């Protein structure tokens, strides 16, 4: 299949779904979907001619004929391996894009906190969904359009003013069925009211060895004086395709911290965009990707400083082995009024093999003068002298290299306050390096 065949397939799939609807096709929410599929028809899938997709060719994704559901038997015991041991968390499980009530487990929360499945909420309180849906993630590329057109399942988290969510919320996404190629398009909405606090983990795993495709869109609103933390953990199989977009808007005095850890997947594209929309807000973006084989990981970030006195910190690190390929594109945008902006960006990559490739593009676009913005990019390999130092102390070469890579990656992790999470991520990196 080529791009246009694939595009037509999605459009006719949409029409099929629409035909089978009863009264729902008249609902205001479905009108949003309809507008999105129209937009998708116009936008199409991006190609490498598109500057934002210059280094990432998605044609291999579109070669497959994905199906939306399959019968998969799994149980609480089987999914234990995907959980974070020792972490106190509410668990929301999606299997091939569908909410699984049996596997999910939501701990008791303070009054007013809503942690729900989008599909259920659409049936019971569509007005509530309409209030937030599509407010932050504008449809500006084919994948977001597609996700919006097929929006049905996902997690809606609404935290009222002056409330803190107890423990973490872990959104577990499992995909795959043996012998089949599955597509899932989760749409998550996270709304933190004023003076609230919430910490979320979204993780992606495979249940089979086949090529699956996940196309996620997250919309996040961080209220005034609030704190939102999101960990995105990508551990799908080495054949999977993953497109993920997170769009966050920050209110006054708020803090948004985002971690992106990519270990699995064949072609992975992460877009993390934040809008610092009121004064004294802080955005922190951290990322780590370890790639091997023929993996392709593309991290795009956009930090939009729209208001004065905001801060942003960004640090992305990558370790690339074999003939894998990494892409980093980080853009810091400082608008005219955003005086007293402080923006710091750094991205570093280590190439371990002759055939690994890294393309990086750190961009600054600045229209205000009273700002401090800097970015640094470095590409290199493990320091021979450091390896030698370790070896001279009787540490084997493999071990020495692992130690150095873990130290390199640790810069990202040491900002994690939760010890359980810190150790888990560290453990995952260690496992991957074996």
């Amino acid at each position: 299949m080529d791009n246009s065949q694939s595009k037509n397939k999605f459009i006719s799939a949409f029409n099929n779904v629409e035909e089978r609807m009863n009264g729902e096709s008249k609902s205001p929410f479905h009108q949003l979907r309809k507008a999105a599929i129209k937009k998708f028809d116009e936008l199409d899938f991006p190609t490498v001619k598109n500057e934002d997709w210059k280094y990432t060719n998605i044609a291999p994704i579109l070669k497959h004929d994905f199906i939306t559901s399959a019968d998969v038997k799994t149980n609480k015991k089987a999914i234990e391996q995907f959980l974070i041991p020792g972490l106190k968390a509410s668990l929301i499980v999606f299997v091939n894009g569908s909410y699984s009530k049996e596997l999910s487990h939501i701990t008791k929360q303070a009054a007013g906190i809503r942690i729900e499945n989008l599909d259920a909420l659409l049936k019971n309180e569509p007005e509530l969904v309409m209030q937030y849906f599509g407010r932050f993630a504008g449809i500006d590329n084919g994948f977001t359009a597609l996700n919006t057109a097929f929006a049905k399942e996902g997690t809606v988290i609404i935290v009222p003013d002056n409330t803190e969510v107890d423990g973490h919320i872990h959104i577990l996404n499992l995909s795959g069925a043996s012998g089949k190629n599955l597509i899932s398009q989760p749409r998550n909405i996270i709304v933190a009211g004023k003076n609230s606090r919430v910490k979320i983990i979204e993780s992606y795993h495979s249940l089979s060895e086949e090529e699956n495709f996940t196309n996620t869109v997250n919309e996040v609103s961080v209220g005034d004086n609030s704190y939102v933390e999101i960990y995105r953990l990508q551990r799908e199989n080495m054949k999977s395709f993953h497109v993920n977009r997170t769009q966050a808007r920050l209110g006054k005095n708020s803090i948004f911290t985002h971690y992106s850890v990519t270990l699995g997947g064949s072609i992975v594209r992460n877009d993390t965009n934040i809008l610092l929309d009121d004064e004294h807000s802080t955005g922190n973006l951290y990322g780590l990707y370890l790639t091997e084989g023929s993996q392709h990981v593309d991290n795009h970030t956009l930090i939009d400083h729209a208001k004065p006195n905001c801060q942003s910190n960004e640090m992305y690190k990558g370790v690339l082995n074999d003939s894998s390929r990494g892409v980093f594109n980080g853009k810091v945008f400082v608008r005219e009024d955003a005086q007293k902006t402080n923006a710091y960006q750094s991205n570093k990559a280590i190439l371990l093999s002759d055939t690994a490739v890294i393309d990086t593009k750190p961009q600054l676009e600045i229209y205000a003068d009273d700002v401090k913005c800097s970015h640094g990019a470095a590409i290199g390999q493990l320091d021979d002298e450091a390896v030698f130092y370790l070896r001279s102390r009787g540490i084997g070469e493999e071990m020495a290299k692992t130690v150095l890579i873990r130290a390199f990656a640790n810069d990202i992790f040491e900002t994690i306050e939760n010890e359980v999470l810190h150790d888990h991520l560290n453990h995952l990196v260690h496992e991957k390096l074996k």
Partner: protein
Amino acid sequence: MSTELSNVEELAIKDYKYGFQTDIEMDIVPKGLSEDTIRIISAKKNEPEWMLEWRLKAYKHWLTLHNSKEPTWANITYPAVDFQDIIYYAAPKHKPELKSLDEVDPELLKTFEKLGISLQEQKRLSGVAVDAVFDSVSVTTTFKAELSKLGIIFCSMSEAIQEHPELIKKYIGSVVPYTDNFYAALNSAVFTDGSFCYIPKGVRCPMELSTYFRINTSGTGQFERTLLIADEGGYVSYLEGCTAPMRDENQLHAAVVELIAMDDATIKYSTVQNWYPGDKEGKGGIYNFVTKRGACRGNNSKITWTQVETGSAITWKYPSCILQGDNSVGEFYSVAVTNNHQQADTGTKMIHLGKNTKSTIVSKGISAGLSNNSYRGLVKVHKNADNARNFTQCDSLLIGDRCGAHTFPYIEVSNHSAKVEHEATTSKIGEDQLFYLRQRGIAQEDAINLIVNGYCKDVFRELPMEFAVEAQKLLSISLEGSVG
């Protein structure tokens, strides 16, 4: 402080010092571009058949590009250029055969004097040979005899086509082929003149070679073509400096510069560009769309680009190095200043192909007024470029709250032994630095000049002595008063 600021701002409204037009009789080909225009240009210059054919090939290629219009990817905005509304050839009617300066048209000499490039001065004091390009045809070439003793060829492009066709045939378009980009194709089709220099094996050029471009005659697009070749072990330092008279309509300047360095050769190419930037409302000014590229063909060769860009309404320029030879070195030092409505999108490309190749990029952008200044660069390390090394530093200084500074670096690495570093900062002049200087009795204006000059020092250091002084002066003129 606010009253001081307004004083300072008044100073910014400084008129373009070099705005004047010289009345010399001109030989002009009617406006417009067609195959005939090219044939006329070629015939007027008495060019051999192969040259005309090459021009026509370029023109045909350009036509195919023209359908898709001018490139629009740069971070600049301007009304579309009407390529039929440009005079493609203008030459002073009497081309004098000169041996000494006394024979030069006095009117012309006056122009140069106003520009501050008195030929006599230069010849007598600084030992700089000047190939002064007055509009499109070289008028005078000095020190030629002295250079030819060493076997160095330094002449205008038209002369070189007549006298050294084998060199031109071999090298023209070998670094910037006419298929390279829209403006390179246009230039290849209609280029009128430029400079040619050949440094033979093992010769170190004893003086700084230099050419001053002037754009004269209302509505003449200047399409210069420069070709510099340093053969094995050769060394040459080349200066290019520009000023142009004040004019209302936008003028297009699409030059092509090609540098070729063979084994162990070194080329230093320095530019001070101060064309008319347009008035305070952004009216008029030069469009400077230039393709500059150097090829380090040989082992241990080195090419250094140094540029001080203060003029032009729009600058669109990426002097690049192709590091083919092993151990070759590419350097790029740039100061780009934009004020009022100026727009600059400039940077470099360092393509690492050979082993142990090194490149350094130091770019200092200064934006003031309503201007926009972008750095756009590419560092590419190919698979076989073992131990490639790059260091990039691009800093932006913002003066005033309505200007923009942007950085678009591309880094593409396909070799694991490469070491690539990139640093960029954007900030305004530090209040504490200013306060420190003011406290010691240094006037605001001087203090800012001092800080800005210090900020640009890394680049000025790379300029030849004669230029460094001029560059510093230019910088303070360009920024005068815009500071606050």
